């Protein structure tokens, strides 16, 4: 780990983002006298169309953009892994069926599911959560299935069967620990995807509602002032891209390290 500066840098940036989310900053109070202000000591990145501090909004936006994504990815990973593990261990027709179902499900974009959920519910954070959970577990199920099928053929599983271990014990105690590292690396790679989907739904007005600070929603609001104050689009856009990029790089490093590729 020590010899990989990219890995360390990415991990540090992610840690900083996760901690910064809880800084007690004022991201919602408006000040119409100071609309579209440039950078100053009081407002390092200036203010937006309602005179709110842009830096504070970006930092507090981490709560929704990064923490919400993190929780969503962990839940999706847990569900997908469990499904893939059980189907992979059962094998045969169950495994084939799961693969066919997943082939269809991975072609459904989160944005479309989000639109449908928003149509039958209200736009909001609950809608975001449902849309991401409905689509987010499938890549984990696919990977966990492949890993389980591979691991099941190994001798240690045969040994466990010979010792009388049950199917659930073998899947969870013997196979899962051997699949957890590639799954963790995959979670980092999926993180970027989920982050972008959530921010995209908020951009469309289906997720976080104003005045909640969220990067996608900030960008949508700033787009109305693209001509006068392009920084209101560029700054949240940069936050989204940097967060997605850093976690993707982290995932790629971990994947290369742990998958032995």
């Amino acid at each position: 780990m020590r010899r990989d500066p990219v890995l360390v840098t990415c991990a540090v940036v992610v840690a900083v983002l996760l901690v910064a989310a809880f800084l007690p900053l004022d991201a919602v109070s408006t000040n119409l006298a100071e609309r579209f202000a440039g950078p100053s000591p009081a407002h390092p990145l200036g203010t937006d169309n309602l005179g709110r501090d842009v830096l504070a909004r970006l930092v507090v936006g981490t709560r929704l953009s990064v923490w919400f994504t993190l929780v969503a990815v962990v839940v999706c990973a847990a569900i997908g892994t469990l499904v893939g593990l059980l189907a992979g261990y059962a094998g045969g027709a169950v495994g084939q069926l799961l693969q066919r179902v997943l082939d269809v499900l991975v072609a459904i974009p989160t944005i479309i599911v989000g639109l449908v959920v928003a149509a039958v519910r209200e736009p909001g954070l609950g809608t975001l959560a449902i849309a991401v959970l409905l689509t987010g577990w499938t890549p984990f199920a696919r990977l966990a299935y492949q890993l389980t099928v591979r691991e099941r053929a190994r001798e240690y599983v045969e040994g466990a069967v010979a010792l009388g271990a049950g199917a659930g014990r073998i899947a969870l105690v013997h196979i899962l620990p051997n699949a957890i590292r590639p799954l963790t690396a995959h979670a980092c790679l999926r993180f970027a995807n989920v982050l972008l989907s959530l921010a995209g739904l908020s951009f469309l007005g289906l997720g976080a509602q104003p005045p909640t600070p969220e990067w996608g929603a900030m960008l949508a609001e700033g787009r109305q002032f693209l001509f006068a104050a392009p920084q209101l689009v560029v700054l949240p856009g940069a936050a989204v891209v940097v967060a997605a990029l850093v976690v993707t790089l982290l995932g790629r490093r971990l994947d290369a390290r742990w998958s032995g590729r």
Partner: protein
Amino acid sequence: MTGLVGRRLLTVPFVLLGAALLIFLLPRLAGVDTVRAVLRSRTAEAEPDPAVAARVTAELGLDRSWVEQFLRWLGHALRGDLGTSFATRTPIAPQLGAALEVSAVLSALALLVAAVVGIPLGVRAARRRGGLADRVVTAISVVGVAVPEFVLAPVLVLLLAIAVPLLPATGWGTPAQAVLPVLTLACFPVALAAQLTRAETLDALARPHVTVALAKGLGPSRLVWRHGARLALTGVTALSGMFFAGLLGGAVVVEVAFGIPGLGRLLYDSVIGQDLPMLQAGLLAVVAVAVVAGIGAEAVALALDPVARSEAEG
């Protein structure tokens, strides 16, 4: 090969029927009050007049059983009548057709850019693993996947329509208006195509027949294109679902951001306007396109790969 594709085509009506049933039941499963949704889209009143509500219920046939309603909806849909929009009170089918046409052109252009730019980049990167070209292409593709359409769209407008006023910022119809949306939509498929082509070409180049070709004295350029890339393309087409999902989700954002009257915009407007029949018709179109695209991709994969073809036949 035609036999296999034909068998796949036979399943299409059943898939569509299942999807139609799900889409029809969607508002019911979610407990949406259709009458209220209609009235809310037409008037600003919070509490509808009971007499008006009763009339709308009868008008929409909501007083009958859901089976009867579904069959009626399906029967009309099969005759090309997809109902009337709650919001505009005009027939849906012509609007949907026009929107599909726009989105088809937009996605086809983006996919073309992805094929023309992404695939050669991937093949070039695979020629020497870890070389300069490989590192540059990998960096481009990692960044390309991390930049979403809703960031790229305003940034491109800022650069090429506001800072340097070369191109129109919104609209659809002229070739100039298509440039920014197509570039925005193509970003993800280009990056994905480059990544997948690179990985698949590297895999293909590790196979024994490539070593034999190398031993026989084949040049590196011919080797990577004739033996590597051809095999790689089968792998890429097999993952067409990822491209489809990327294009479809991206199309919603791009069409909203650039004000393009396509299918994504239609779905978005119908959600915002609580226009249920329009949303249902749009979703049905999405499923139909997805099914046809899936079969098309499979046919292309079979045409490219003789091994898969013989396995599928046997």
